[in-house]
């Protein structure tokens, strides 16, 4: 085990676009990887391990990391593909460095759902074939069930929902993180309309991580204070859908007992819906059960605009990590929080109604790193 702390020293993502038609997936990933290396002041020759993350079914390629591996610089290097979520790829890069298996790790995560003929159909195939597929379970349906459970227990605060939409839209507009939509407010999964759900987009993202001993002058590191990830029941009836149990478990693992979410300067939280945002804020520890609306609307949460107006699928949670990294590096551009945050947290969820989750705690101060 390395005794070094671990830092993120470079990140990059391609622009927020509904459908990228002028670049292949490989070109997008190449741009992201090259940008992250440039941000770190490194070349691919400095990288000894590459971690990729993909889900095969959306873009219609089997073992999709194969075609992208070269674009991410993987040829000749130690390559691992983590297929459960983009945020897990980040966690695995962290583990690899702690374990002394690499000195510099490049992580590349992407989604190009515009290449899929029917992303909703691909999503539905994530339901097991005996019962849930026949019932029509999809991510949208699961988000609706989560929201309805929350509304049934705590009431439906429509004013808070509208405010959340407006606050996120304003931030997303500032960040350039909004893609076009044909949403009209049509009810899709009670109580959610198509305006309450994330809008899919194409994007490739990358990050470079290293150990403290290899951080060089001129680099701008964001230090990892803690990482947690956890899973929960696949069967929705096995979970309390009003909350996000896996997210809460991941937050406990990442933060430990000494750090309170309420003391963190900036939080980038993946939201499965507008109403889901309230439960997610509660799960990371910003508010007690039922009190998440106020916390989700605070200026500390999702200054980037979050994922509701541009959501790159498997890369959505990973992008939250990159946004949190940029805040503590003071490099978040038009959505930079002032004064520059000393601490940040990224929270990501995946699977039906957030079956799994990951949390990354970051700091600008190496002395606070794990």
């Amino acid at each position, binding site marked *: 085990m390395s005794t070094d702390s671990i830092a993120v020293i470079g990140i990059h993502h391609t622009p927020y676009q509904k459908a990228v038609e002028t670049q292949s997936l490989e070109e997008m990933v190449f741009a992201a990887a090259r940008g992250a290396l440039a941000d770190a002041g490194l070349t691919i020759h400095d990288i000894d391990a590459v971690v990729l993350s993909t889900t095969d079914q959306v873009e219609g390629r089997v073992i999709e990391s194969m075609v992208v591996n070269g674009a991410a610089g993987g040829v*000749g290097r130690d390559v691992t*593909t983590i297929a459960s979520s983009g945020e897990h790829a980040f966690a695995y890069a962290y583990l690899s460095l702690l374990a002394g298996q690499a000195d510099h790790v490049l992580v590349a995560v992407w989604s190009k759902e515009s290449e899929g003929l029917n992303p909703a159909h691909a999503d539905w*195939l*994530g339901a097991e074939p005996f019962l849930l597929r026949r019932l029509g379970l999809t991510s949208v349906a699961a988000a609706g069930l989560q929201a309805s459970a929350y509304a049934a227990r705590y009431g439906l605060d429509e004013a808070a929902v509208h405010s959340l939409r407006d606050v996120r839209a304003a931030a997303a507009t500032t960040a350039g993180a909004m893609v076009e939509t044909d949403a009209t407010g049509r009810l899709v999964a009670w109580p959610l309309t198509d305006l309450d759900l994330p809008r899919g987009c194409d994007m490739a993202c990358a990050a470079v991580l290293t150990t403290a001993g290899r951080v060089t002058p001129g680099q701008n590191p964001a230090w990892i204070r803690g990482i947690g990830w956890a*899973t929960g029941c696949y069967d929705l009836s096995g979970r309390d859908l009003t909350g996000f149990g896996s997210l809460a478990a991941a937050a406990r693992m990442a933060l430990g007992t000494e750090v309170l979410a309420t003391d963190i300067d900036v939080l980038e939280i993946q939201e499965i819906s507008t109403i889901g945002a309230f439960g997610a804020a509660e799960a990371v520890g910003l508010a007690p059960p039922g009190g998440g609306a106020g916390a989700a609307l605070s200026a500390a949460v999702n200054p980037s605009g979050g994922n509701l107006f541009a959501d790159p699928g498997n890369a959505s949670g990973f992008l939250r990590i990159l946004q949190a990294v940029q805040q503590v590096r003071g490099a978040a551009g038009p959505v930079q929080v002032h004064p520059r945050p000393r601490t940040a947290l990224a929270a990501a969820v995946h699977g039906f109604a957030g079956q799994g989750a990951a949390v990354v705690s970051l700091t600008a101060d190496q002395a606070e790193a794990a």
Partner: protein
Amino acid sequence: MRAVGIIGTGQSAFTKSRSDVNYPELVREGAELALADAGVTMADVGAVVFPLAPDALIGVGNGERWCVEALGAQGKPFMRVNTGGATGLTAVVAGYVHVASGLFDVVLVAGADRVSESRSAQSVLNKMWDVAYERPFPLNTITMLALAAQRYNAKYGADERDLARVTVKNRRHAALNPHAHLRTPITEDEVLATRMISWPLKLADLCPSSTGAGAVVLASEEFARRSGRPVAWIRGAGQSSETFWMGDRVGPAALGDHADADALGEAMARSYRRAGLTKPREQLDVAELYAPFSSVELHAIEAAGLCPKGESFRRMADGEFALGAGGPVVNPSGGTLCTNPIAVTGLVRAAEVALQVTGRAGARQVPGASVGVATAIGGDHQFYASMVLANHLEEIA
């Protein structure tokens, strides 16, 4: 670095299909065997790594999520690995990394596959290649490796009988392995008489489509010693990858020679360096080399450093690499050629080496085995993983 060992392994009896269990139940079967072998329960397990290759083979997107309850993994850190055929061993490497990081003491790596039940595994695997050119070529894993076999034979002077000898050896080994799928011994002439699939590969040169489960339990040195169980210590792990494009492996501008397994050799060299292993032919007792087709085993043996390039088939004709012969034994389990449940095939390679170096391999035991290597290959022979295991933490002599 923190020492990590395998303290438990589990394998179902691999077969063509199973109608008595669904996919999560099959995964659970392997996990329960490994947990029992390790003498632990899920309460001891800090994290789970799940190997699952193409989702399409089981017909459920992100099928790992379906198996959380069957594994009792609710509330635990859980992630999935997918590097194609290398997935199973990459997952064991990932489990090793979890424990070596210092964050976890006990990690379960558990998965399963039911390849024959996908109706057409080769149709699924054809979708690995690019839409515009190599997919309609048409490439699948058989035609791809037939090209490599042609190149190997042309470059080194091997022929179809040399390939047949690999099958004969591995079937003889598999007959001793109760977990193996194809356990019926076969002769060279019988191999040569099977129907041609893609020249020079015939039906008996190819692995079966297997259904079954596999799992291993990994633990920190402190936990492993306290457990009192036989421990297969992970002495080194290494991975590498090469170009996706078949067209970049042939012709005058090729990045590599399709006859050889140089990227596998690089992954193995990395694991050897970490293990302090410098003379594989003398220092290795056993090698479980991922080779789904007879032809692959020949260049894998050479990549492992067990003989020079172009020599393996001649040595195999002399009886080397088989149980009962002197020197390292290759695939005493019968190998991937006799059992290929894709998602866990690489995991089974590590499990078999763990059984060998702890003296628990039953009728297929290599006498006195103390050091071994496991490998796996994934994608279009693009992702490579290697792991050296030993029954001690001393310097490898």
